């Protein structure tokens, strides 16, 4: 059939229609599979919300919301149980506040140093160290808090109990320091160079440029870093579970031990709590509170970060 050179050429360059159809099918199939993979994240969120809400609903059939939100004793595993979330919240907030009061100022200073002062060589060397610090498992930080920092603090503060909120708070602060640093540094480095050069041309020193020009310009990103750090601190589990004790204790005193929301979940999971019991449901109720808190922080952080991305 292939008589003329023209025909031969056409046969050589035109793939068989069958082959084309197969190719198009693979292309379409690939798109579907990739989409399904991307959609998994949506289902994970739905799964989390569904599990937390459905178990919490059962919990709130037995416990009034008023008691949950106003009572200041948390003893769900006692014979005469009481379900006020405040002791867990006070523990969570106290430890987080200590952690943030370390991570935020130090993180901001370090970010200023890294973005405005450090020579590129130093920055190249420091970033990996910070990443290493971030990569250490949290359980190791917990051990460090209990076995090293607490005894150290006890040498300075007589009468400090073995389980207290101060030590895990400090350790958690150092633990989230790399995170706040890298987020704030990203925000500062996104500030256009022209703004800095303008300030230098006006005779501003580096320090003034940093605090009068760079920080105000990067403020939404820096705020986002703080809020995301807050979300981290609130959800951190192992450091507090090891070093802060597991007694629910309504106090804001860092010298005392207290359980956090996360510690309570760990404590219940370690014991033999039957599926369907009120103790079992209570971890989902406090888990829902924890999820809502971090969700709020994450959403605010996300919107602030988007704002600085749009600005520059």
């Amino acid at each position, binding site marked *: 059939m292939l008589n003329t050179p023209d025909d031969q050429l056409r046969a050589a360059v035109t793939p068989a229609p069958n082959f084309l159809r197969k190719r198009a099918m693979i292309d379409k199939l690939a798109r579907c599979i990739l989409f399904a993979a991307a959609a998994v994240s949506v289902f994970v*969120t739905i799964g989390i919300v569904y*599990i937390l809400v459905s178990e919490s609903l059962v919990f709130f059939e037995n416990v009034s919301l008023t008691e949950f939100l106003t009572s200041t004793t948390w003893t769900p595993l006692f014979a005469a149980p009481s379900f006020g979330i405040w002791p867990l919240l006070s523990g969570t907030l106290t430890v987080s506040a200590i952690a943030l009061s370390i991570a935020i100022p130090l993180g901001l*200073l370090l970010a*200023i140093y*890294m973005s405005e002062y450090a020579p590129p060589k130093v920055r190249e060397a420091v970033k990996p160290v910070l990443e290493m610090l971030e990569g250490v498992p949290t359980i190791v930080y917990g*051990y460090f808090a209990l*076995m090293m920092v607490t005894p150290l603090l006890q040498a300075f503060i007589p009468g400090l109990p073995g389980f207290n909120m101060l030590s895990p708070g400090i350790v958690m602060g150092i633990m989230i320091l790399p995170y706040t640093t890298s987020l704030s540094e990203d925000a500062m480095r996104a500030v256009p160079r022209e703004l800095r050069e303008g300030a230098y041309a006006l005779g501003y*020193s580096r320090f003034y440029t940093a605090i009068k020009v760079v920080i105000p310009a990067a403020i939404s990103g820096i705020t986002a870093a703080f809020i995301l750090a807050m979300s981290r601190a*609130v959800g951190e589990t192992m450091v507090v579970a090891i070093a802060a004790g597991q007694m629910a204790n309504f106090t804001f005193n860092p010298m005392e031990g207290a359980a956090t929301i996360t510690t309570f979940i760990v404590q219940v999971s370690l014991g033999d709590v039957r599926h369907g019991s009120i103790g079992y449901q209570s971890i989902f109720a406090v888990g829902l509170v924890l999820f809502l808190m971090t969700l709020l922080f994450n959403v605010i952080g996300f919107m602030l970060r988007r704002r600085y991305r749009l600005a520059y």
Partner: protein
Amino acid sequence: MATLNQTISDAQGHASLVRRNKNQDILIAGLGMLILVIAISTLLAMFLDLFITGLPRLQDPDFYMSFPSRKAEQAGILSAWVGTILVMIVTAAISIPLGVAAGVYLEEYAGSNWMTDLIEINVTNLAGVPSIVYGLLALGLFIYAFGMSETVLVAGLVLSLLILPVIIVSTREAIRSIPEAYKEAAIGLGADQWQTTYAYILPAARPGIITGAIVGLSRAIGETAPIITIGALTYIAFLPNAPISGDFPFINFDWITSPFTVMPIQMFSWVSRPQAEFQINAAAAGVVLMVLTLMMNAIAIYIRYKVRHKD
């Protein structure tokens, strides 16, 4: 005369201003370096403390080859490190293909519509969900709703979901850094979208994807909270069936449905004991964990460094 004096005092004023500014600059740089020193010495102190405390157990070869025991000096991490390896195999097998596929979709395929926005918001949010909430998800969904037990598979699943955002984000960043010309060349040669993705984009993005996968897995190795939540046992004095055996059919998957323990759980159970001898074991397990995660992070950093300095 008056103007000369004025000029001199002006100059003195400027000099003191310059000095003050210089001092401020030195102060900030000094503080920055001080914080760095604090951070680095924390890392060192942590490692040295664990190492010195755990040294008696670390030197003992039996530590790596024996099961946990009620006697501290006989207890070892055999079931823990085997468990960690098995759980990581499952985690890698699930999270890497899923994360890479999702990253490719979001970067290369997704149009700008509400569906894409929804997926992106979800990925961002999931990255910030505390790990213990994933544990609650696994407890409520896998253990009770699906009736699975506390197995290697469930642990691998929950850790996969946990590190999925890390892998998705690093895949996207790796793809974004590929020059547009690569894709255009492939399309110009007549490749369709899948062929371009498969034959050009994925190979070019490989270093970035590997880095992300290593960082994600190193995080999964150290995760404790979600594994505690699903109720993994701490006292496991046996090993799951070996995946490879001498008898037909040579490979089996029994280990996937076997009870397990992992390194951080073992360490936690030792830390929680009041006796000081168990703290030595905990420290030794901590050294093993730290060495593992630091090494994985170092490899990831090295790959990234190599890639950045190649061109």
